């Protein structure tokens, strides 16, 4: 496998992304989004698309930049650093992966940023694709979809929805699921935005006899799990990367504060109790960064074997982010608790990222299964 270090091209991509986001999407943008009630800045997304980010996983002949999963991870990581809000993971990573091999016009729509996708997979408070109960009943030549999807990231702003539905079998079974690609404005589909702590777009989607045709099916009927697995792996790796960037952002704020804050006439960063906790956090972030790089590499080079690598990354990123934001608030003291200060944004996004597409337990259990226990 290629090195886990950044290659020269990847370093250039990272530096370019960092420069762009520092200037155009500092944490203040998230605050502005929240205060103005919007999920993301469409102008910012257009610029990201122009730079090839929206098409990072779309082949060049379909209008994308075809940079691959490691590159997608680097971009997600940089977005995590400043908490930049965009439909990047939902559209450019998850949908682009799910629709690979599908009609080219959809992929080019993803690549130019005009198609905004959301993945509607979960129905309860925990990630559980095979628990899907949402029914897709056969009706004539097509299907009628009835049921509810929760925690649909970017579900409020998306113009298309990938929805996992049950065409056979019972909830809990991996077989009998089908993935549909439908217009978000289709009759019978209602979307209810949920105000979540991270100030991003999360919605509940209610399907009441929503009509779908055979053309809307992605992959095979009853073979939806196969169709969605690659997309979930890619999405999980990207969320992990975003969380790792988030860790780096929160950690930089914290060490910056340790170097300037004075108490007892002393810079608090000289206190060994704080130094050792900071050094421990840094160690955790370094180990997690390796798992993130590895997941991207494996997705690019041996995607069929990516599940273990992705779950190691998501488990590590979830745990590390929780540590870093908790310590971040604690080391800032009272000011860390204020809304005026940015640390809270990191903590809230970390919590949502921890749940999105599988929490620590989900992924640790997957690692255990892959490792034979």
């Amino acid at each position, binding site marked *: 496998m290629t090195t886990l270090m950044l290659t020269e091209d990847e370093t250039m991509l990272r530096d370019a992304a960092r420069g762009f986001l520092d200037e155009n999407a500092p944490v203040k943008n998230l605050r502005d989004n929240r205060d103005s009630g919007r999920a993301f800045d469409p102008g910012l997304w257009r610029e990201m698309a122009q730079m090839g980010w929206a098409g990072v996983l779309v082949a060049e002949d379909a209008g994308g930049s075809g940079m691959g999963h490691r590159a997608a991870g680097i971009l997600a990581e940089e977005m995590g650093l400043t908490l930049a809000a965009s439909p990047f993971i939902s559209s450019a990573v998850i949908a682009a992966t799910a629709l690979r091999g599908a009609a080219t016009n959809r992929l080019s729509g993803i690549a130019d940023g005009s198609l905004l996708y959301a993945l509607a997979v979960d129905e309860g408070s925990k990630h559980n694709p095979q628990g899907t109960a949402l029914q897709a009943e056969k009706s004539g030549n097509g299907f009628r979809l009835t049921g509810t999807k929760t925690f649909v990231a970017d579900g409020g702003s998306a113009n298309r929805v990938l929805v996992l539905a049950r065409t056979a079998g019972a909830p809990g079974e991996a077989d009998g699921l089908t993935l549909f690609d439908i217009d978000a404005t289709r009759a019978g589909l209602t979307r209810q935005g949920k105000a979540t702590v991270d100030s991003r777009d999360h919605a509940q989607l209610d399907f009441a006899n929503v009509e779908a045709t055979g053309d809307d099916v992605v992959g095979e009927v009853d073979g939806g799990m196969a169709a969605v697995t690659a997309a979930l792996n890619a999405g999980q790796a990207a969320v992990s990367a975003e969380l790792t960037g988030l860790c780096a952002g929160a950690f930089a704020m914290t060490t910056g504060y340790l170097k300037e804050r004075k108490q007892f006439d*002393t810079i608090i960063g*000289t206190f060994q109790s704080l130094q050792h906790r900071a*050094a421990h956090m*840094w*160690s955790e972030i370094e180990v*997690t960064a390796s798992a993130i790089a590895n997941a991207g590499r494996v997705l690019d080079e041996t995607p069929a074997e990516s599940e273990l690598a992705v779950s190691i990354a998501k488990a590590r990123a979830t745990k590390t982010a929780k540590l870093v934001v908790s310590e971040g608030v604690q080391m800032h003291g009272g000011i860390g608790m204020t809304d005026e200060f940015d640390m809270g944004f990191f903590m809230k996004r970390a919590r949502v990222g921890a749940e999105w597409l599988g929490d620590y337990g989900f992924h640790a259990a997957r690692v255990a299964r892959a490792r*034979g*226990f």
Partner: protein
Amino acid sequence: MAAFSDKPEVFRTEISAFINTNCPAVLREMPADQREICWGGKRWTFTSDAQRDWLTACAAAGLTAPRWPEAYGGAALSREQEKVFREEMARAKAPSPLESFGLWMLGPALLAFGTEAQKTHFLPQITRGEIRWCQGYSEPGAGSDLAGVQTRAEDKGDHWLVNGSKIWTSYANHADWIFALVRTDREAPKHKGISFMLIDMESEGVSTKPIKLISGNSPFCETFFDNVKVPKSYGDDMSSIVGEQNRGWDVAKHLLTHERTMIGGGGSGAASGVLGGRSLGNFLSSLEDGVMADPVIRSDVMELEVDSLAMGMTLERYKDMAKTGGVGHASAMLKYYGTELNKRRYELLMSITGSEGVEWDGPHGTLAPEWLRTKANSIEGGTSEVMLDIISKRVLELPYK
């Protein structure tokens, strides 16, 4: 001396053929837990003819120190070739022909700081397994504060007169020579008066005393120097001091970085011992049913597995970083994280094996002493607390005051 091809695919074929031809089948078929490490040295007794033959063959081909230049007994392999060599060794289940502090520690120090004469004299003795070295760093009064060493070497014209004592000298009772930090200038600031000295353990006045540890084993010794005369020179351009006189701290620091990376390597779990190269999952499935049904144990094992695998990736990433520009003080992280992880692993193995694990001679073999041994991981080569100090001050640049 075997010369291997530069072409990657040819190299793999050649090295694989070398291993298959020269490594006796009896060594390759030996179960991992029965393998004996070959340490070499004047007093070494080979456990079998096969062990001796394998060492001889590897040494002749430079493969006991594959990366060292051929002139010093190595095979001058590139990093990629070395990786292939290790892969082929693993594939053939061939044991390492030789392990020693000479290969791990003194060799790298001589390569970085030694004179040409020191290198040509000492390095081949190491690669052939003729001389076994030990490391004389810590003293009763100089542990974490290593630069506080008090063992002193007085200038007596043609020789140094060495007095003092060292502690935690690994296998000093089996070693032929010692590389030691000694104080050659008592007036200078403490980091500026230390020299890195090579001393023959057969010199009059050197004695050792094994220290019995909580594991029941005695891998460490106290080493005493009582008016030991150390020649200033072992020959032309061959001082008994490596590097500059009074600049031994530079050599020591260089080696400590090396040592920390190595100790941290234990953290990924590829370690020997009770796991014998098996994954934790593999080990668990060999146990009686039910242990893994305990939700607390199961949860701890899953977490450890995630962290171990991520640490393995980190070691890989850091190795590549070392190749392209060095990792510097960040190696303290590998040492800290790897050793703490290994301690966790053994605590968990003890939990998993329950009352069988606490038997000295139970069904899990040497698990109990191995578990006790891991407690030293986060002390030796710089404590976890010293590593955290290095990270916070050198990497994160948190203020001193």
